[in-house]
């Protein structure tokens, strides 16, 4: 059922939701952008709908709601391990279709791959519900339509903001009471509401259906060897990059106590494959780019049945060297078609 209400009325809904949920949404951090005088649009906790940025894409994805950049796995004293306690509240995340679809990728790795579901991921994932944000047009560098991730039905609420009016579709019976309680006393109107999804992006790509080892030695990758600086921004902004590294630390004022954390890892940064003794595979940025592209557009699909990349275009947005992932895939397609280069 869809409803129309004023921002004030919707904020009452949010207040009620906040009793049971932590609400994460795109917010604007003024002056925190990469360059001076620019803002950073990223995920943050919100308490009112005016804080939500509807018209811009976030730099970082929503994945940190269930996969924080640094996560304590346990604390230890000399003899004991203690797992950190978890907030009992649910997590409600405002997300676009590509980002909601990205969680399906994270689920595959964290819940399906290997002998056990990852307990840290699972305990947060079970609490996670989505508020769908529509994209009335694709943003710069988006190519979700090409990846088939432009639509989703996996959302509890749809929230659309038009002027001082909020349109809200309830797609989860668990949330019906929330609105119906407010219905009687307020001027909330029932409306017919359907989610709108982007059907075309400016960036379109065709994914070569069979990428294999034969392309590994192609000179194409060398271009990235000199251009990529290995900063890892593409991985950290990616909603589907899920690699982590273990990190132990001890407290300076009590070295017998400490904690083990896992922190985001990047396959584009030196040291990703380095073992004790210095042995390492993929030493050039070209090889690392190849590894990343193959994972996103081939390897993952072989294992799980669908492509890893969701076409959000964030890696292109943040690359300081203007490296384009879809352009790279395009080139692979051209090579496959026997094109030049």
């Amino acid at each position, binding site marked *: 059922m869809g409803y129309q209400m004023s921002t004030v009325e919707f904020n009452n809904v949010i207040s009620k939701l906040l009793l049971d949920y932590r609400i994460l949404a795109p917010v604007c951090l003024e002056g925190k952008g990469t360059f001076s005088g620019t803002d950073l649009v990223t995920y943050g906790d919100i308490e009112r709908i005016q804080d939500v940025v509807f018209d811009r894409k976030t730099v970082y994805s929503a994945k940190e709601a269930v996969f924080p950049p640094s996560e304590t*796995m*346990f604390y*230890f004293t000399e*003899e004991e*391990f203690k*797992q950190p306690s*978890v907030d009992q509240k649910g997590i409600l995340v405002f997300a676009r279709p590509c980002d909601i679809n990205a969680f399906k990728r994270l689920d595959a*790795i*964290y819940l399906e*791959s*290997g*002998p*056990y*579901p*990852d*307990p*840290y991921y*699972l*305990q947060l994932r079970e609490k996670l519900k989505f508020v769908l944000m529509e994209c009335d047009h694709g943003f710069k560098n988006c190519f979700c339509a090409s990846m088939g991730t432009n639509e989703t039905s996996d959302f509890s609420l749809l929230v659309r903001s038009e002027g001082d009016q909020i349109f809200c579709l309830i797609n989860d019976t668990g949330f019906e009471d929330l609105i119906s309680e407010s219905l009687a006393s307020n001027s909330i109107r029932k409306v017919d509401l359907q989610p709108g999804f982007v059907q075309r992006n400016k960036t379109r790509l065709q994914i070569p259906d069979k990428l294999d*080892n034969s392309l*590994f030695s192609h000179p194409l990758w060398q271009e990235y060897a000199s251009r990529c600086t290995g900063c890892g921004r593409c991985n950290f902004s990616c909603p589907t990059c*899920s*690699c*982590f*590294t*273990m*990190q*132990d*630390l*001890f407290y300076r004022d009590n*070295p017998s106590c*400490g904690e*083990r954390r*896992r922190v985001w*890892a990047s*396959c584009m940064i030196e040291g*990703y*494959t*380095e*073992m*004790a*003794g210095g*042995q390492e*595979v*993929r030493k050039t940025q070209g*090889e690392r780019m190849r*590894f990343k592209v*193959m*994972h996103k557009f081939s*390897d*993952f699909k*072989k*294992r799980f049945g669908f492509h890893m990349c969701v076409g959000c275009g964030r890696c292109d947005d943040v690359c300081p060297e203007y490296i384009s992932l879809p352009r790279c895939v395009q080139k692979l397609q051209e090579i496959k078609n026997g094109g030049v280069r």
Partner: protein
Amino acid sequence: MAQNPYLPHKVKILEIKRQTKIDYTFKLESSIKPDNGQFVEVSLPKIGECPISVSDFGDGWIEMTIRRVGKVTNVLHDLKEGDHMFIRGPYGNGFPLQKYKDKHLVIAAGGTGLAPVKSVVNYFNDRLDLVKQLNLLTGFKSPEDVLFKDELEAWSKDFNVTVTVDQGNKDWTGNVGLITGYVKVMDFPNPEEVEVIVVGPPMMMKFTVQEFLKLGVPEENITVSFERKMCCGLGKCGHCKIDDTYVCLEGPVFNYTKAKELID
């Protein structure tokens, strides 16, 4: 929280044997039952965690041969008998022992590569009637780097053992030269009845496998074991992924027909 596979458990060090200046064998009190060739994640809280292959195991104990080569292992080497370390696992797959039955089994190990196959050697040494013939070829950098000296001596009484060093010294009376040189001169009347295990540094594995192939040993009769960075052992952290394969899950032991397709 549901069962947490990341939580390690404490194990007591029963015995430490110094193999070389930088390789110690730790015998640990543990009830885990690994397959031959599997690994465990070893950790020292506050220092870190790393994957180490189990070099041998028995009733109530496991053994690991650990080189002092990094953050965790440097500190591990300071531990004494009676001290504790933490482990979780075992992880990965083991060597397909059944496949070697009634075959001529050749095990070629370079350096610390001998550790993950030590239990395989012991397994067949105790059951020599299971295989047609058993050969162990093992190479080290120098006489000071030779691991498992006592075991090598004992094994050489029961089956054919070749130990070689890249560079000898004045006291060394044994073989000198790369392991590949000793593969070259092997003679297999029926190479399709030969099963080979090759474990060691990447270059050693590459060239040793090539020599066996030249002798007519079919690719599917060659087993190798990989070494990669692994932070979880559970198919999540991503570091050991090659193509659509996770070395920690589908490996570290691979048939060569698969291994040759795995390009990092």
